[in-house]
């Protein structure tokens, strides 16, 4: 919760005396030293479109902010601007899919999950139509406040039958997942990181497979089960923890639905080590609760179970690094919490 709005404020500086800035909507979430790739979704879709004439791109006034402008520039006749009207975007995407096209519809995650939900539900999902909903600003990736922070999108879409849900970690995964969801028959919701997107998973010899969770590193002291950009944080935290001789495994779960329970249960059962889930999403109804449900239903009892997730609150506006620290999803906060829990 913000401070009382009638309390006067003074400038707050960062740890090195720097002025803190709210990151622009179009800013990259990459850290200063991270390797990145530009617009991985836009380039991947453009590449696919060269050999698949059925691919169509549609947006609701956010092509530049979802990297769809790359496709629009390459294939202007296959790009459809629907205006700032997310209900029409989803309804007309359904109509296009009815006519045999594979539609990539982009907007922000808040607008797809909140404003256009009924259209996604009835016009797209109930009919199993080939619409891929690709949405920027998932979870806490903007400091603009709750109007743009889609902290509950996974919970909303997990309840929707027929919907495949992807929360990719980095540029490599976005590129591979874009091809995979284009080939997949049926509706998909994919969270999108845009602009200069961190490149991480190539170091781990990783390949995205729809519906598959994959171990990125192993360790006996705890099993971190993570999705989306929190896999990046989990891997960074694992390196930090290793310096203190704490060895944790990282299981990356990019497909939230259908959920790879078999791999999750196998890894949770293997050593009985504590399980810690990490997600860029509210603690309600996302990865953590999905893992907990799978464990409970199969009588799997890890020695401990903890969740790193956003609190069940409307989050503050401000600078992203501050907010990631405040809500416990920065690397340093992950390290601190894991250490505390492991005692």
């Amino acid at each position, binding site marked *: 919760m913000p401070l009382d709005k009638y309390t006067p404020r003074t400038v707050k500086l960062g740890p090195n005396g720097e002025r803190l800035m709210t990151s622009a909507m179009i800013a990259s979430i990459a850290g200063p030293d991270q390797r990145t790739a530009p617009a991985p979704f836009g380039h991947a879709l453009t590449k696919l479109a060269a050999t698949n004439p059925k691919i169509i791109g549609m947006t609701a006034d956010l092509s530049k902010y979802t990297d769809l402008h790359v496709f629009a520039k390459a294939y202007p006749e296959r790009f459809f601007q629907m205006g700032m009207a997310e209900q029409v975007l989803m309804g007309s995407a359904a109509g296009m899919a009815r006519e045999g096209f594979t539609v990539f519809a982009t907007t922000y995650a808040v607008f797809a999950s909140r404003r256009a939900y009924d259209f996604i539900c009835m*016009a797209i999902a109930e009919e199993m139509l080939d619409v891929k909903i690709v949405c920027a600003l998932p979870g806490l990736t903007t400091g603009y406040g709750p109007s743009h922070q889609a902290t509950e999108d996974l919970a909303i879409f997990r309840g929707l039958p027929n919907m495949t849900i992807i929360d990719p970690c980095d540029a490599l995964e976005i590129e591979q997942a874009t091809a995979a969801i284009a080939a997949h028959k049926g509706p998909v919701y994919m969270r999108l990181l845009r602009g200069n997107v961190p490149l991480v998973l190539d170091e781990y010899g990783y390949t995205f497979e729809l519906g598959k969770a994959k171990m990125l590193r192993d360790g006996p002291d705890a099993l971190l089960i993570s999705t989306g950009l929190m896999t990046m944080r989990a891997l960074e935290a694992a390196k930090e923890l290793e310096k203190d001789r704490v060895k944790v495994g990282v299981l990356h779960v990019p497909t939230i639905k259908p959920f790879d329970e078999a791999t999750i249960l196998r890894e949770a059962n293997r050593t009985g080590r504590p399980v810690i889930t990490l997600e860029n999403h509210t603690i309600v109804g996302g990865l953590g609760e999905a893992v907990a449900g799978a464990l409970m239903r199969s009588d799997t009892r890890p020695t401990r179970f903890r969740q790193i997730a956003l609190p069940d609150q409307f989050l503050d506006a401000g600078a992203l690094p501050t907010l990631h620290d405040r809500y416990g999803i920065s690397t340093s906060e992950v390290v601190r919490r894991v250490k505390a829990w492991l005692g």
Partner: protein
Amino acid sequence: MTSASGVPHLPNLTLADRAYNIRRHALRMGEVQGQGYIAQALGAADLLAVSYFHALAYRPHEPEWEGRDRFCLSIGHYAIALYAALIEAGILPENEIDTYGGDDSRMPMSGMAAYTPGMEITGGSLGQGLTVALGMAMGLRHKNSSAWVFNLMSDGELDEGSTWEAAMAASSHKLGNLICLVDVNNMQADGPSTQISNFEPLGPKWEAFGWHTQRVNGNDIKALIAAFDAAKALDEPRPRVIICDTKMGKGVDFLEARERNHFMRVESDEWAKAIAVLDAGRAV
């Protein structure tokens, strides 16, 4: 005998005959369940007759024929009316009337694409139909198809913002292959539509959104034919709307006179009486 498009040419049936048959099929379905949006079905029978037996190209035995004109039923609860038209068109078999609304029926109370041949979209969440129809019209144009897309919506759906989002987008995309039919019976769930959220003046609204606009008596077959013909003949790259003022319960005098209600109550013994009144009216 069938025409080039495969529509059966039963001997010398006029559009008035078709409208009568559609009303009769609908009343028989209503009798099966003892309920249904029969007043709306009776009101919309004439515009459905003109749609299916004058305006639309389709093949009864090939409901997904690529060259067909698409007819989207945005108002899912009018399904009873569309089933009646689909039966009359030979797309659904008449001998399934008794299954209406029953378990495993192909004719559920609200229209859904997965259940019924000839049902292009899943309606019922009102305000969605025009958005989907608009996407289909864009898709057909992208395929260089000459097929038309029709969307039948109710006046209650004019309350939904998505209707106007779609109206603006269709105009912006210059969709000359899209025809929207608005059934104005001035009755929605909570009362008279113009009192719930006044949409008048309606024609100027559509015109302001860039649509070719006509407003006709939706129970006047000649007027409907002229309006459909004008909409199709128009040589302008913009969407077309035909606002159809209809009378609920049309064709059955005691239902026309009944206190107007969104979900008209019909007593169990009145269905047969309604059919008798309809039949008697036709004999005149």
